[in-house]
């Protein structure tokens, strides 16, 4: 079963984040949310490059960095496999760091709309429940 | 690699103008030879005049074409490109030269010529042809016009040239050496041609506006020759074009459009101060005395050159007429003013030519001619005939039906040829009548041209 890169990754050329880093972050996010399961093979560098219309060297760089970190494992003749799904404490910090900018926006907007902290907590609860079910 | 040569030849013969010129070239060579063999010698000679004129344009064009092919990034970056194109060019040139050499019998029926004289003539022709090719290569269109005029003068004096070649046999060797030099020089220059070289810009660029940019680059170094004359005559290069004088009369308004091109007044002055004295010196030689036997033989030169120059100076600007119309000026008014500009240019060049080449020399060497009515009728006729030709061409310029253009073109060319051939034999009455006809014709054509151009799309 081959994965279509288009459905898993999106790259933005207008973002300040280099493309290879965008791919790395998205791989890690998918692993953390369970969308990419252990022992699943990622599409080849060529395929990803072709579907996302980016330079294959960029994808290659992302893959090799992920391999160095131990997130992906290279299997001879077959490609890159998801190696780790367990999450270390260090990863937790990193993931929290990713949420912070979004949350900052939420807090600012809530203040603009004069929504209290308690109201926001309640909203978060109900949305969390919805997401779990859906 | 074998397939390149046919591809390159295709470049020559698919070029519409080159194709037409070549067809006329080969046809006239063929027809003239056939007429000579059929003992129609007078007609044979006339057709060879056509051949002669076409050859001049053809050599000029070939210079342009070879540069166009080599003033290209491909010349430096495609394998074997330069070599193959140059080979093709020289082979083609050789073919055309051989055609002329095979034709040379066309001269024989008219006059007795010795072998020496004939070789001398051929050597001279080859040198002239190569010179014109060089001018085409350097894209010096304006100089070509003057060169053309010079060659026409020389051509009319074939008989006297023959005498020169008879007496000075060594001349043909000098001329041949000169030709060889030009050929080798061209080959060397073509091998080395890169974008840094001043002649890289070329005539007939596409799209037409790029042509002007390229032509400016190419002619910049030529115009620098005129700088000393600018100082002598204290002509200042104007820093900016003044605003359009909306309330002035037609004549003054029209000067606005001519502002940039009017720098040519400097070249007029240049030629008057340089060419006129040279010309005087030249015609004082005993061989040249016969040149003035009949002043009326220079009709072609005196009428056609101003027309060509006037048209040439406007051709440059024609691609900008669309932009000019964006200014707050009505189209009818603009067309009128443009017309005045062209006519004024024609008039100024005609006056310069007629004064330098006819009035002054005759005043100095044969003042009695100036008292005859015939002379002044002739004088006027050169002007009115140019006027007619110019307005006719202007009228054809806005004609979209190509068939009509070709027909009119043939009629006009024949008219020119007839007048040119028969002018020496005209009586005063015939000259005066021609004046009237030309003038009326010119006026009618002006009106027609005006109406036609008002309907034109200026893109």
């Amino acid at each position, binding site marked *: 079963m081959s994965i279509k890169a288009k459905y898993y990754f999106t790259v933005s050329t207008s973002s300040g984040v280099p493309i290879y880093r965008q791919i790395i972050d998205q791989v890690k996010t998918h692993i953390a949310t369970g969308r990419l399961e252990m022992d699943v093979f990622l599409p080849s560098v060529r395929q990803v*490059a072709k579907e996302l219309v*980016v*330079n294959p*060297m960029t994808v290659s760089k992302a893959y090799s960095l992920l391999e160095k970190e131990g997130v992906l494992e290279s299997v001879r003749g077959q490609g890159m496999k998801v190696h780790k799904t367990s999450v270390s404490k260090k990863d937790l910090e990193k993931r929290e760091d990713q949420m912070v900018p979004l949350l900052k926006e939420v807090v600012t907007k809530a203040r603009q709309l004069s929504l209290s902290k308690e109201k926001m907590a309640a909203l978060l609860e109900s949305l969390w429940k919805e997401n779990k079910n859906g | *690699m074998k397939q390149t040569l046919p591809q390159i030849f295709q470049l020559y013969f698919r070029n519409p103008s080159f194709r037409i010129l070549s067809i006329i070239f080969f046809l006239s060579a063929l027809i003239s030879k056939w007429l000579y063999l059929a003992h129609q010698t007078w007609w044979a000679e006339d057709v060879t005049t056509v051949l002669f004129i076409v050859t001049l344009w053809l050599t000029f064009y070939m210079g342009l074409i070879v540069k166009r092919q080599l003033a290209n990034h491909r010349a430096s*970056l495609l394998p074997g490109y330069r070599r193959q194109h140059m080979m093709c060019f020289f082979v083609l040139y050789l073919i055309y030269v051989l055609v002329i050499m095979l034709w040379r019998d066309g001269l024989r029926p008219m006059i007795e010529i010795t072998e020496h004289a004939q070789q001398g003539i051929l050597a001279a022709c080859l040198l002239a042809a190569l010179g014109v090719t060089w001018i085409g290569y350097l894209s010096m269109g304006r100089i070509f016009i003057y060169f053309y005029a010079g060659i026409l003068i020389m051509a009319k004096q074939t008989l006297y040239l023959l005498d020169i070649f008879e007496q000075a046999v060594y001349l043909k060797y000098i001329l041949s050496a000169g030709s060889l030099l030009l050929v080798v020089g061209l080959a060397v220059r073509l091998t080395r041609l890169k974008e840094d070289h001043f002649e890289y810009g070329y005539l007939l660029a596409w799209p037409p506006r790029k042509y002007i940019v390229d032509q400016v680059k190419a002619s910049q170094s030529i115009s620098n020759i005129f700088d000393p004359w600018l100082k002598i005559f204290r002509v200042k290069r104007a820093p900016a074009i003044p605003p359009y004088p909306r309330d002035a009369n037609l004549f003054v308004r029209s000067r606005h459009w001519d502002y940039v091109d009017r720098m040519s007044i400097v070249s007029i002055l240049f030629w008057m101060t340089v060419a006129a004295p040279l010309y005087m010196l030249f015609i004082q030689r005993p061989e040249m005395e016969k040149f003035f036997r009949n002043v009326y033989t220079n009709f072609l030169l005196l009428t056609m050159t101003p027309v060509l120059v006037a048209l040439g100076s406007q051709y440059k600007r024609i691609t900008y007429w669309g932009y000019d119309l964006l200014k707050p000026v009505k189209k009818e008014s603009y067309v009128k003013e443009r017309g005045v500009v062209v006519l004024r240019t024609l008039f100024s060049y005609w006056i310069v030519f007629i004064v330098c080449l006819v009035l002054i020399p005759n005043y100095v060497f044969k003042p009695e001619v100036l008292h005859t009515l015939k002379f002044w009728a002739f004088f006027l006729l050169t002007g009115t005939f140019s006027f007619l030709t110019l307005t006719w061409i202007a009228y054809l310029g806005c004609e979209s039906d190509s068939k009509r253009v070709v027909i009119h073109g043939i009629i006009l060319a024949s008219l020119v040829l007839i007048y040119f051939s028969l002018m020496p034999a005209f009586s005063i009455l015939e000259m005066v009548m021609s004046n009237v006809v030309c003038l009326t014709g010119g006026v009618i054509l002006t009106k027609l041209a005006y109406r036609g151009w008002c309907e034109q799309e200026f893109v």
Partner: protein
Amino acid sequence: MDRYVIEAKDISKNFGAKQVLDQLSLSVPAGSVFGLLGTNGAGKTTLIKCLLGLYKISRGKIHVLGDDPWDFMEATKEQLGYVPQSDRVYPWLTVKELIAYTASFYKHWNAPLIEKLIKEWRINPEEKLGVLSEGEAQKVSIILSLGHEPKLLVLDEPVASLDPAARRQFIKMILQIVSDRECAIFFSTHITSDLERVADQVAVLKEGRIHFHGELGALKDEVKRLHIRSEQQLPDDLGLGREKVIYCESSAGEAIVSVRGFKKEFKDIIEATCKARVEVEDLNLEEIFLELNR
């Protein structure tokens, strides 16, 4: 020689009094996609023409595919493809004839590839060159440069006249080439979003010199914009050194500073030295280009 397809060392070029290139050095690795950025009039076209031997350099040395460009060997020309900014010739020739004409000079010509591209890019081969629009003419130029499957492809503003769909096709085509075979691509452009996708090396040309030259990822890691808020006066160089600061804009207590050679520690350094709060903004290539050209 094999590592770099283009090597230029201290080259200078001037037109009369105007110095366009000033002791410029550049190297393009084999197989890379190299983007040349620069403002209009910075000299991109001049640089490209010098690298290909169309202009003569007044000083310096250039090696392209191991050969001197002023006088290329024929074998080198077989490996080289060039797409100039505008290339209008022979308006009365058709596209098909121009292709046949170009093909006749090369020993190796991939005719099926050309046919495929002509179809994909929707060009009518029977059309006369004179009636093509700027975009179509540019497409033809690009296609012509690919027929002999060169090792080095040099393009001067190849997408200037192409609409977004055509530009996307162009990028896809470049990526196809790069993944199919060993081919280095060198092109100058303004359109930074295309470069972001496709280039792995970039160089920024400014005032006749190369101001940055290296991996695109590295450039984006090194050039950042800092938003600083502080109670006290901020020193001009923020404690980092003058050469690191590209541009600084400040008013009471707030400053926006763009820096080069950025490292993660800078944030902490500044926060410590200036008792400030620092936010690091990532910049895309367009922003970086604007900052470098202030």
